[in-house]
């Protein structure tokens, strides 16, 4: 059994930032990740990261308070205001720190970090590195972590690349470690730790049309959920307005921030025809833009009557596209055969982000002592019912830092986790589950369950929802969960070395659990707020629904409770842009 004071699961931006913070607080830390750190999905973020840096000529009057207000308003008042303020106040410090560590941001003429306008923001406050902001942030943070790893003596900072975490170890009500599989050998390993953090990303793969990578299955949400940690506000799913038709690869909001147009079959900038987007037009918040795009397509004004619209960048000109959006051009040419310099891009809204997640307080602590969570897998909540573009990258580095610091304090006061029988028991339980999975070669089709889940979510739990469809979706997901118990391993078991059949099955089980919470939360919430829109309840209902959904796992299904929203400076008002 290996021992580290702190273990961080996930080596994306939130996990790496937490590990750096733990190291700087003299805590011996290990980072476990199912993929090499630079493959983590944080890198797919394109457009940028928000902070009131005041570097843009039109951003001189910006402030963390204004940034917090935009965040809260964008959240349709479901965000916890003190947490949102905490994030925006720390934002400039964390972003400049990333710059100091080498992040190659794009620059203003004065040589400062460049900023661009983004949806729902009062000022141009989205710092960026062309359209590859996630990529450069992740590489920079990994470089910083490697520097600390190389400088560390006596294993103060250790990476376990390609370790697949399967379960938590809990002893006397405290999280004291994890059971993981070393993917290259297929061997189980038990890790003891004084505190554990999950920074494992979102569950977007429950949808057929998602921008998320293939590892975004919500496994890191399902594991603590099965140990009694509630999932919060799962019904709030962000649908990004512009994903590439066909593959649903992200086309950054930066395309519109830089001046791109959304047009319908008649070549018209249709956002002008809807009162909630008529003023801000293409830089309206994501929930509003996606809804109006969906309405436009339902009215038959999709391109050629099909289920997509045009994102037109041609008027920006070759020079600006090459300077600001080169990655978008590459992706569009490789995956859709379209060059945005000469042709408009075919786009449609697609699943992009989960506002909900593991319920934590504003220090990333959960109800389970010793267990912390940060990044997209959590719900603090700073995004409420709708996240602003550029706030997710920000959440990772701010709350990675805060969570790492909180863990360090916890470890100092709670002391070392004792050895106990819980470790052997947890390993034995995992071993039994794995043997069952790989031994079952006859049974329900893995591919069929996965595909049915994805299509159900896309068809019935998408931008416009109603009771009938949600009821149907809930019974389908529950039926799939039953079938999943008899899921067959595709082909025959084989050795455990890089056995993706096992990982896929564990991912699918987790994705179903997360999907059930999304549907159950959406069915209960008889109002429309942020990204959650009910055709049968089209108005926001603060009297009854200004509250957080909390899903507890009970008898295999979510039992829903509600929690208070922490208000602050701003009373709920109608959102107007």
């Amino acid at each position, binding site marked *: 059994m290996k021992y580290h004071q702190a273990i961080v699961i996930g080596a994306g931006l939130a996990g790496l930032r937490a590990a750096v913070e733990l190291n700087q607080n003299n805590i011996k830390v290990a980072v476990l990740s199912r*993929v090499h750190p630079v493959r*983590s999905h944080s890198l797919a973020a394109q457009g940028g990261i928000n902070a009131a840096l005041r570097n843009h000529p039109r951003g001189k009057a910006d402030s963390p308070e204004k940034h917090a207000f935009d965040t809260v308003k964008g959240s349709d008042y479901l965000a916890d205001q003190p947490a949102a303020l905490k994030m925006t106040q720390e934002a400039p410090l964390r972003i400049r720190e990333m710059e100091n560590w080498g992040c190659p941001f794009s620059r203003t003429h004065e*040589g400062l*970090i460049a900023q661009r306008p983004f949806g729902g923001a009062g000022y141009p406050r989205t710092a960026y590195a062309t359209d590859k902001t996630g990529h*450069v942030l992740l*590489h920079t943070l990994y470089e910083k972590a490697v520097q600390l790893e190389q400088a560390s003596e006596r294993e103060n900072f250790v990476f376990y690349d390609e370790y697949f975490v399967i379960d938590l170890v809990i002893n006397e009500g405290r999280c004291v470690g994890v059971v993981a599989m070393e993917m*290259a050998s297929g061997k189980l390993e038990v890790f003891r730790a004084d505190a554990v953090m999950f920074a494992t990303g979102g569950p977007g793969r429950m949808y057929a049309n998602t921008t998320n*990578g293939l590892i975004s299955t919500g496994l890191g949400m399902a594991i603590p959920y099965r140990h009694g940690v509630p999932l919060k506000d799962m019904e709030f799913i962000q649908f990004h307005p512009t994903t590439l038709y066909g593959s649903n690869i992200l086309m950054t909001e930066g395309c519109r921030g830089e001046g791109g147009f959304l047009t319908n079959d008649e070549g018209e900038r249709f956002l002008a025809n809807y009162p909630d987007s008529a003023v801000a037009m293409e830089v309206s918040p994501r929930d509003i833009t996606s809804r109006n795009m969906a309405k436009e397509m339902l009215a038959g004004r999709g391109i050629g009557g099909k289920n997509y619209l045009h994102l037109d960048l041609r008027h920006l000109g070759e020079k600006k596209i090459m300077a600001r959006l080169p990655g978008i051009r590459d992706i569009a040419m490789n*995956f859709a055969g379209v060059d945005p310099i000469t042709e408009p891009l075919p786009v449609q809204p697609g699943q992009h982000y989960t506002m909900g997640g593991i319920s934590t307080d504003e220090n990333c602590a959960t109800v389970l002592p010793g267990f912390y969570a940060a990044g997209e897998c959590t719900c603090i909540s700073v995004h409420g019912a709708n996240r602003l573009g550029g706030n997710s990258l920000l959440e990772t580095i701010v709350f990675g830092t805060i969570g790492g610091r909180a863990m360090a304090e916890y470890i100092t006061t709670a002391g070392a986790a004792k050895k106990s029988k819980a470790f052997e028991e947890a390993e034995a339980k995992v071993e039994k589950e794995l043997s069952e999975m790989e031994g079952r070669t006859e049974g329900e089709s893995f591919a069929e369950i996965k595909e049915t889940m994805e299509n159900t979510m896309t068809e019935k739990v998408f931008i416009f929802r109603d009771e009938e469809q949600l009821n149907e979706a809930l019974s389908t997901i529950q039926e799939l969960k039953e079938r999943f118990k008899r899921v067959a391993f595709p082909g025959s078991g084989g050795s455990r070395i890089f056995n*993706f059949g096992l990982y896929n099955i564990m991912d699918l089980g987790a994705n179903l659990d997360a999907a059930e919470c999304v549907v159950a939360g959406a069915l209960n919430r008889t109002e429309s707020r942020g990204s959650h829109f009910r055709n049968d309840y089209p108005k926001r209902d603060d009297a009854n629904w200004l509250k957080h959904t909390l899903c507890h796992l009970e008898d295999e299904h979510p039992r829903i409770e509600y929690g208070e929203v922490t208000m602050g400076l701003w009373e709920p008002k109608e959102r107007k842009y």
Partner: protein
Amino acid sequence: MRKEYTFKILRYDPEKDRKPHYQSFPVPYQEGMTVLDGLLYIQYNLDGTLAFRNVCRAGVCGSCSMHINGRYRLACETQVSHVSRGSVVLRPMSNLPIAKDLISDMTKFWDKYRYIQPWLIAGKPAQENAEYTQSPDERANLDLIIDCTLCGICTQSCTVTATDEEYLGPAALLKAERFIADSRDSADFERLDLIDTEHGLWKCHTIYNCQLLCPKKINPTGSIKSLQRRIVHRYLAYNQPSGRD
């Protein structure tokens, strides 16, 4: 249009197989199908044990580099109809040990990355809550270089790496150039010393395979030549009579 493709894949499970062998799978064709789509079809439907790395499926994470019908490419951004009319032949990177099937053991690749000290070594301490300034022109020196995803295709396609496994290779040398070219970094000489070695940058034979195959169209050969020029200039500056005492 073809209804079915054959995926011929090099299989190797170190626990079961004495040596690698090819196995063929039938894959139904759909318009726009990528090599990664085909691999996922096999893994989900036919053989869950088939091993290959994948994350983003959008050409940005660098996981799925492999040898596809005659050259190294990313499986996710390669359409099957662009490489073949009926069969897709896949094997892992060849200059690294096979961990399983299409997965290479990249330990050696990451060791070389670590060797060049891939982090910013700034000349002056940062001010509290302030960025180092860098002009747009200085920042432009980093264009393209910073797009590197460390997919490893350049190093795998490098014929020098094939004959000298200690050679640092294009990816690590490009990373060295990324910091040396950064106006904020001040450790040029230390880094040049690290790569001015027997298995360092002089091993480059200017074959340009790395540039030809880079999925991000980066030019590592150009960066290596630029680093060589820096070393020559440094040598000349310090070895002329009018140089130092």
